[in-house]
């Protein structure tokens, strides 16, 4: 299947991905403020996942490949075409955060793994139809404790489906079972016949290599947590693709875009209460 080479993307691509990472972080910070000052919906943590998610997005083809994402995956959704305004309209309860069929972005509220089984179904439809599509499904590490995660991967492995399951580990998470076991999520996936590896999600290069083509398993060095945005900035600067002034401008651009999105979302019309009755069923009648 034709896939974009991503292991060494050009500087312009790296810079675009870096902008997305910065934007995701800035939105997270803004949501944190909105939650506390205006009692908006609780914000979620995206810090630390940006490099991994934009690396994944860089390997996908927006509009063709499928993404089934969860609450952690803001940087991924931004990289796949969601705008800061889309985010803010949902935050201000003016639009659904789950409406994105045009971009094949299935945004789910699930923290567990039930959407992994659905992703396997999406990939099965791809296989049956003979289309050239890949499905990426994301779950945080808690998802692997659910039956649906295993049922989905079992189905995907049995049918050899074009599915990538990204398990995002939350540093400092409780890991109620994993701390007692040696088996990583990758080891469990291998049990279902899937190629799998564990990588440092804060390292864009490692993530990019993994999504561009799975590399042979290797032992990862234990690393202190490093901000993936800092690492990406150093990478770009070392390659001569990002000056301090340019970086400052990217930060300001993000702030301006988010501020504008907040203003527009505040001013957007709110649906009527009775519109809560809409879209329970299709209006198309059969028979």
């Amino acid at each position, binding site marked *: 299947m034709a896939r974009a080479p991503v292991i060494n993307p050009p500087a312009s691509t790296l810079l675009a991905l870096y902008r997305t990472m910065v934007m995701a972080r800035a939105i997270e910070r803004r949501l944190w403020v909105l939650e506390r000052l205006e009692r908006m919906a609780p914000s979620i943590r995206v810090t630390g996942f940006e490099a991994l998610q934009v690396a994944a997005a860089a390997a996908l083809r927006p509009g063709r490949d499928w993404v089934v994402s969860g609450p952690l995956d803001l940087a991924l959704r931004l990289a796949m075409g969601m705008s800061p305004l889309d985010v803010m309209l949902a935050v201000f309860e003016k639009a659904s955060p789950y409406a994105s*069929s045009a971009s094949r972005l299935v945004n789910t509220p699930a923290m567990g793994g*039930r959407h992994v089984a*659905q992703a396997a*179904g999406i990939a099965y439809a791809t296989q049956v139809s003979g289309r050239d599509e890949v499905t990426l499904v994301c779950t945080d590490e808690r998802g692997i404790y659910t039956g649906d995660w295993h049922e989905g991967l*079992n189905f995907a492995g049995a049918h050899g489906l074009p599915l990538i399951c990204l398990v995002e580990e939350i540093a400092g998470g409780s890991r109620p079972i994993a701390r007692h076991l040696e088996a990583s999520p990758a080891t469990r996936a291998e049990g279902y016949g899937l190629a799998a590896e564990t990588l440092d999600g804060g390292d864009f290069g490692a993530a990019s290599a993994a999504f561009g083509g799975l590399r042979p398993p290797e032992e990862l060095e234990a690393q202190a947590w490093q901000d993936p945005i800092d690492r990406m900035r150093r990478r770009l600067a070392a390659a001569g693709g990002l000056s301090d002034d340019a970086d400052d401008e990217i930060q300001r651009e993000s702030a301006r875009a988010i501020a504008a999105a907040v203003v527009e979302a505040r001013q957007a019309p709110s649906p009527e209460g009775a519109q809560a009755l809409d879209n329970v069923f299709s209006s198309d009648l059969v*028979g």
Partner: protein
Amino acid sequence: MIEAVRAAITEEMERDERVLVMGEDVGRKGGVFGATEGLYARFGEARVLDTPLAESGIVGVAIGAALNGLIPIAEIQFADFIHPAFDQIVSEAARTRYRSNGDWSVPMVIRAPFGGGVHGGLYHSQSIEAFYAHVPGLKVVIPSTPADAHGLLKSAIRDPDPVLFLEHKKIYRLVAEEVPDGDHLVPIGPAVVRREGTNISCFAWGLMTHYCLQAAEQLAADGVSVEVVDLRSLAPLDRDTILQSVRKTGKAIVVHEDNITGGFGAEIAAIISEHAFDSLDGPVVRVAGPDIPAMPFNNAQEDFFMPNPTKIAEAMKKLAAY
């Protein structure tokens, strides 16, 4: 009726290559009741898919396939086994259109044989309709005749929303009739009056429709005219036909196998008392399974659990005399 189910699936698979069936033993075996017999050879493994014994995964995969353009018919081998898939059905299939503000839809059918009186015991006899008829966004259809099974299933497959299609396994081979030729569709929603009457309105679905018709025949010998309404669809529910019938007869009885407390009969009774109270000439009566956890294996206890024509006729007589 099982032939009608198989014919509907076959015709829809021939009509639309997006339609596929999936479930435990639906492929080579053709399903435990034979509903998919011959489809594997005819349509191939990709469209007649044997799945692991994992109901949540079956429904989850079907949801994903529907999101990506297919029209899955997911078979749950027995309705008793559907409970692991409750979260996928309620939180995902039924809610996807709503939570996406109409952007996504999940056109899929979940078929499940249900009901007792077949010596199936605790885990092959359950009636589950009340759990799911409670869920907006999900349609719940229960045919009682081969023609309806055929026409309603074809409509369900063409429906843009998820449909739970419950087939009473005792009538798979108990009831036979000619199915209309051609592309015969029965719309989901309207009830049908199986027997007209003037003294009592009787509401039922699935096997109980037939038992109610037998009971009505007994009552007729005593000069009591019973109208039997086969609801066919619990969601959407044909309230107009229910209320129209009760306003005519003034008395209502609801019959179902499910446990009486919280069974769907309670909803019908509430609708009648809220909207046709002035027409009532007696209490709304329910004939239903007792409030015990499941249908026992023991023959005497299974008989004790199941409504039957005699029990229904007794309740009708009592109501007629009220």
